[in-house]
């Protein structure tokens, strides 16, 4: 019941007292940590071992006779729920607080909402970015076999999971975009921990064709892409939060066609109204993100 005296270190210097019990036969296979970056750093610098994260855990080592073995000083994941988020993040920040992408950890919403490193990361599994995946994958068929980042984030962000599966979505469940393509989960000074200073500067990082500058600007486009789009997913095309023509008419009321209502008998089966069928308002006002066309053609985003 206590560590074998002749045990040898298996991964880290000084880990014999742990690995004499938690050996290769143990399940889950804790020794797979040797294949992770922590295993690499431990071998290279010799300063990392089991106690660096789990604490000396003397009571765990010397199991009182006839009693259940006490837990180590610090455990993580579901089993560590009784510890506060700060206590569980503390050993990680011992080494990582100096990392540049953790500079704004204190300013971030995750820290404010009692999220700790082990909520998202797992140490023993050599998974991609050491991300924790506690639930089976629930998604359509994908052509990638990687473990995808959104599966870790949507363990908590359920509303986002629902939007990612919608008909119109960014290619996140296909593995072509990650949550960290737009957000810095380790903290940022911007709203919703986005990586850029504003929503528009973030969106035009990939959609550079929308950067302009344009002779004829569309005011809501200039201020915030999210006025019309839902970046995670929507049941409406082009990630629009509401369908055209209704979305456009929420702002544009004028004489004749902007102020008219396009109803159930105006589709192909009815009046075939060209302001409702196909792409509705965009059939003519195609350049709603801005236009460099001249005169009236540009002013009304027609060319």
């Amino acid at each position: 019941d206590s560590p074998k005296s002749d045990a040898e270190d298996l991964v880290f210097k000084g880990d014999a007292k742990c690995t004499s019990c938690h050996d290769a036969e143990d399940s889950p296979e804790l020794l797979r940590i040797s294949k992770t970056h922590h295993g690499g750093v431990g071998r290279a610098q010799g300063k990392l071992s089991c106690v660096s994260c789990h604490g000396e855990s003397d009571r765990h080592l010397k199991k009182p006779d006839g009693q259940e073995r006490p837990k180590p000083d610090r455990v993580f994941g579901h089993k560590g729920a009784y510890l506060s988020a700060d206590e569980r993040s503390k050993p990680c920040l011992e080494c990582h607080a100096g990392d540049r992408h953790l500079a704004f950890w204190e300013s971030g919403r995750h820290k404010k909402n009692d999220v700790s490193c082990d909520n998202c990361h797992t140490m023993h599994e050599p998974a991609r970015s050491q991300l924790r995946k506690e639930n089976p994958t629930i998604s359509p068929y994908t052509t990638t076999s990687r473990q995808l980042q959104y599966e870790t984030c949507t363990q908590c962000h359920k509303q986002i999971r629902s939007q990612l599966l919608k008909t119109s979505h960014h290619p996140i469940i296909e593995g072509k975009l990650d949550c960290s393509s737009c957000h810095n989960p380790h903290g940022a000074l911007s709203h919703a921990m986005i990586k850029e200073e504003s929503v528009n500067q973030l969106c035009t990082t990939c959609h550079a064709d929308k950067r302009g500058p344009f002779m004829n600007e569309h005011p809501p486009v200039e201020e915030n892409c999210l006025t019309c789009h839902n970046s995670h997913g929507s049941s409406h095309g082009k990630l629009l939060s509401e369908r055209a023509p209704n979305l456009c008419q929420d702002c544009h009321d004028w004489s004749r066609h902007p102020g008219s209502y396009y109803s159930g008998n105006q589709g192909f089966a009815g009046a075939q109204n060209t302001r409702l069928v196909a792409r509705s308002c965009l059939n003519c006002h195609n350049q709603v993100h801005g236009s460099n066309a001249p005169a009236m053609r540009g002013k009304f985003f027609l060319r």
Partner: protein
Amino acid sequence: EADKFSTYGSVSVGYRAVNDHAQDGARLNEYRDVSDSAIGVIDLHGRGKGNYLDFYGENLGRDDMFVDFKGGAYGIGKFRIYLDDIVHNVSFGARTPLTGVGSNNLGGTLPNLVPATWNSFDFSTKRKNFGGMAEYSGFAPWYLRADFSEVREDGLKLIAGSLGTSPGQGFSDKPFPVSYVTRNFSVEGGYSTKTAQFGLNLLHSRFSNDNELLMWRNQNFDGQDTSVLPPDNEYTKISANGMLKQLPLGSTLSGRVSYSRTKNNVDILQSILSTGGTTPATSPDRNTFDGKVVHRTASASLYSNPTKDLDTRVYWNWYDKDNRSPVVTFTPAGGSGLQCGGAACVTEVLDYRKNNIGLDVGYRINGHNRVVAGFDYVDLHRDRVDFDETKDKKYTLEFRNTSLDELSVRAKYQRLNRRSHFLEGGAGTSAADVEYLNRFIARFDASNVDQDLFKLALDYTPAKLLDFGFEGIVKENRYKDTVLGRTKDRREEFYLSAAYGDINAFRIMLFADVEFIKYDSTHRNASAAPPTFDPGAPATLTDYNWTANNRDRNYAIGLGMDWKATSRLKLNGSAVWEKTKGTVDFSVQPGGNNANEVPIGNFDNATKSTFSLKGTYALTKQVELTAGYAFERFRFSDIAVDNYAYTVGAGNTTSYLSGYNAFTNYTTNIVYMLGTLRFE
């Protein structure tokens, strides 16, 4: 032995067969390359005493190829090189009567009202994203990092345009050639320790488009028309950020400043086909548009943790968009069809400045109860015709309880009050002047609004390995002083989940999502002779108010299973059913023209069912066999595409449609087999 560079990994090769039933298979392949093909994955790792290499490659040679090669030496540095192909298929087998598809000059003999004779093409683009980064931290705490990437996007996208003076005279869909290249390069240097961090970053991004104009045949006027495509642009940004920790009261001070400039240089079209059927001069007051927009930002955040139970955060964000582009005035001839409201056209230069301050206070009542209160204030000034200043006051209160070991409760309430300064209270001279309508239009992105948000999240773990989750969000925006425009929107979203088991043995998870989303709006239908632009006036058959009530009902059920059935056999299963239904109800002011007061029952209605089952059998420790089956069924109904027709109208005012997004239903069966060789 520990110093030896050891390698491990796996190589998988197999084949996928796809049997899909779709008139237009684009939706099935929207961001994927799901076709009969060889499939393979390479996943290699190397670990030395202080260094590592990881290589990953999948879908090699396919439209969704991904290759990722990274490595590093601990405490010295790291590098990464990647190639990521992102395909976006929108419509296969689209049609146009125009010739020269793929070029920026579309001709053709028109009219041609026989779609079967039209040219066929695919609306599809592919992004080849090649990039990398290198970071050196050998002189820690100093570091130096460089990132580069080149994104090539090629293919065909849709551009449409009116043919005559207004949609009543037809429009036409056309494919424009996409040949974009975006080259990004950034370098960052800085100093980073546990108590202080400082970084300086310089970014340069150049977007270039081989085709800045699309010339095409206008069927209405039988003349050559022109559409202007996205212009080249250059984006340069310099930013600095820093952080100081272990300040008094357990404080951390963080800050960031940035200056960015976007500019381009566009030749202004000196003439363009107009609604008069001729190609008159546009008469700009300059020949080139030298676009230049400067964004300046500054942010600061002071986080303090004066006692174990109390934490506070005070933050400030400043954002300034300074539009230094020139105002361009066009003075085309009267009757040319190019004037704006019968006068010169003058472009608007839009600037805005945003000042945001906020405070969060978190207090841990005891080990199991924590409350966080927040206040956020935004003062936004903008150059816009309707609202020039907007003030937001947002109050949040969050409560977290974990008193019961098995139950965690998180509750949040948020209240937003937005008040904006309205400039158009005196617009228009009289109710017969169309400008008069602007007195009553309040655009929802800036109008006065009272918002209430309630959020409740429960996580319940009654037994080991058994988890239940619930999240409910109700958010309502009441646009207080809006007469015409969006008057209210409301979201009611409920997410349930249940999961049982150990991910390393057997685990099953079920989720169910229900969302009700509503948008209510009021509008004014006004004719041209003589109109009454006063919404308060009694209704006539030509001048009346009407309201629209948009409803979206979204439902989703998902089931997932991971099962190590035996020491050799592992099963993974997933099934998702989603249904979305969009409707609009109209009501016309009594006395108005209610002939068309017919509700819409299909606004982006979609049903999607997917099922996949995969089995992996370990023949030996090195050799695995994987076999999988997947099924997908997608049905779409929408008033804008149901009973689709490629032509609408007749003669010169015919509209020519392309079939874009019109035939997206598909059913598909996918089977695949994969052999994997693992080596340690």
